[in-house]
């Protein structure tokens, strides 16, 4: 079955090991949530998968629909169908959302083929309407001067435009008020289907009320310490991360 398959992944930042034998299999068509306290390595996982060069892979393998992901350039991973909605999307001054997405769409086409402008804008405007984004945003520089919520919405817009096979959403809920959260969740739910696998990284259970996951994984100190159905998120919410450190983590180590 097609999947994003992470096997025994070990990642260091500098000399410091962050991910320790991390394994997770995300079948296409499913939505999995990763929950864990701050500093446990969730963003490290996301960026290492996307190919950020600060994150050194010291062991393990990752397969995207059977293809080796590690070792590829970030843009090659994107073209294979991986998408990362960043926890902290950065500003790209002078590059408008429309031009950026057009260039990114163009990059996915074979040599000599051009993005059709009319269809492109039609699609872009449609997705923006779905996310209740003002169309004026297309001309604005990417993320420049955007509020936290606007940036997150813009990440989802990019995801909807680029139609990945696997999307990692790194704390997309943080910085969103409840209305924005609902809109973003609606956008993701629209994309849900047999052609998309989603890894939702979150700190809180709240988002999972709107994007209901097929599976929940609890992460602690660079690895998954417990996996379960969506009810695991409620259990975690009720018992708190203390429960993870005191009960789950020690038993997982043995």
């Amino acid at each position: 079955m097609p999947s994003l398959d992470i096997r025994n992944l070990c990642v260091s930042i500098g000399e410091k090991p962050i991910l320790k034998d991390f394994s997770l299999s995300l079948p296409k068509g499913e939505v999995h949530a990763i929950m864990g306290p701050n500093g446990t390595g969730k963003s490290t996982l996301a960026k290492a998968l996307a190919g950020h060069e600060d994150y050194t892979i010291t062991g393990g393998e990752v397969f995207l629909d059977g293809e080796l992901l590690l070792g590829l350039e970030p843009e090659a991973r994107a073209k294979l169908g991986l998408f990362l909605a960043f926890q902290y999307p950065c500003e790209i001054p002078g590059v408008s959302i429309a031009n950026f997405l057009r260039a990114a769409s163009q990059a996915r086409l074979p040599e000599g083929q051009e993005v059709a402008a009319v269809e492109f804008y039609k699609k872009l405007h449609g997705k923006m309407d779905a996310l209740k984004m003002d169309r004026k945003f297309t001309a604005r520089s990417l993320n420049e001067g955007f509020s936290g919520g606007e940036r997150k919405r813009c990440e989802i817009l990019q995801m909807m435009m680029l139609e990945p096979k696997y999307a990692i959403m790194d704390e997309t809920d943080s910085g969103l008020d409840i209305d924005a959260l609902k809109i973003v969740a609606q956008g993701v739910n629209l994309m849900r289907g047999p052609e998309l696998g989603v890894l939702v990284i979150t700190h809180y259970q709240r988002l999972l009320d709107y994007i209901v996951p097929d599976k929940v994984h609890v992460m602690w100190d660079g690895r998954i310490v417990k996996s379960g159905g969506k009810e695991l998120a409620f259990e975690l919410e009720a018992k708190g991360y203390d429960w993870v450190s005191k009960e789950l983590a020690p038993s997982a180590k043995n």
Partner: protein
Amino acid sequence: MDQATQLEIDREKGNFRYETDYAFDAGVGLRPATVDYIAEVKGEAPWVREFRHKALKIFESKPMPTHWATKDLEAIDFSKIRYYLSQGQKPSRTWDEVPADIKKTFERLGIPEQERKFLAGVEAQFDSEAAYSRMKEGLSKLGVIFVGPTEGLKEHEEIFRPWFGKVIPTSDNKFSALNSAVFSGGSFIYVPKGVKVKQPLQAYFRINAENFGQFERTLIIADEGAEVTYMEGCTAPKFETATLHSAVVELVALKGAKIQYITVQNWSNNVFNLVTKRGLAHEESEIRWIDCNIGSRLTMKYPGVILKGRRARGEVLSIALANDGQHQDTGAKMIHAADETTSNIIAKSISVGQGRSTYRGLVQIPKHLKNCKNNTECDALLINANSRTDTYPAITVRGEGNSVQHEASVSKVSAEQIFYMRSRGLSEAAAMSLSVNGFINDLVREFPMEYSVELKRLIELEMEGSVG
């Protein structure tokens, strides 16, 4: 962006060279005999030869300007350069008459094609002399003159001599003196009263020989109410040793005239490009420099306008891209010398990798003038942390009712931003091009269409080269 993949420049378009035999060669080194050789080959009038000899003395008496400019200038060894090389060709009027090897070069650079598409006239210079020169027939009927300096000073002395060396005196700086001693090639243009040349005239300067110095000289005179746009392009192959390009360009806009001078410079990495450019704007005239510098080892160039007549306007729009191993030392000069004159400077520099950009500005509005305005905007973009940028805006504005506006900004494209763009599927080069184009976009919108397309393409090539 990792260090290894940063910047190996490869502007492949200009990097090729066909074997060439030179019938005329002034030899290596610079002596009075070199000047005589050039004057001889060209059959110049005694006053021109005299002008050259005087210039040589001034050149020798002036120190290298390393007290304010980079020490890298000391790497130029004037005794190892060849000052004049040509096949003895007269500029042909058809491409078929151009010697085959030279024609091949210009075809590869796309010059005949551009001529067909959108130019009113073309001059193509190969080392020291033009190989091709042609203007649309209609224009010569209107009295437009478009020739090289040899022909200009010989056949149209009464038109060109009064302005020759007047906007930029020989002694202006060491390199204007050098050019005045050994100049060869370039364009002498005269547009008669009221004639508006709709399509651009273009000159293309090609350096083909190693250890060579190219010293073209350009003088453009737009008579009252006349209008003209001139474009220059340049390339050279990559040589092991340094090559020198040192031009002097003088513009004269008489009452109500408009001159637009556009440069697309795409030098290879070992060219010292030391150019003096200045315009003299009479009453209600307008001079606009659009100057885009890509490539070269060191470019020093500060196009200027002397605003001599009431309500004259001067403008410099410049873009400099300094990649690894390059130093773009560019800027603008606006000398206000009459009431109600206005000037505008917009300078954008991009430094990539170890590339270094310097902006030097000079704006003078003396006390006795009224209602003069200057606007200066300098923006720098740094792509990765090693790049260096310096700004030296010298703005002297005195007197009441004169105004000046000055803005400067520095922005950075970090490794994080590049990664963000790559994570969406853009290559590193595409990500950098997108940032650079975003940065210069509002300026490029002011450029003529053909030029902005060419510029965009050059930037893309440069960025592709920079990531190897």
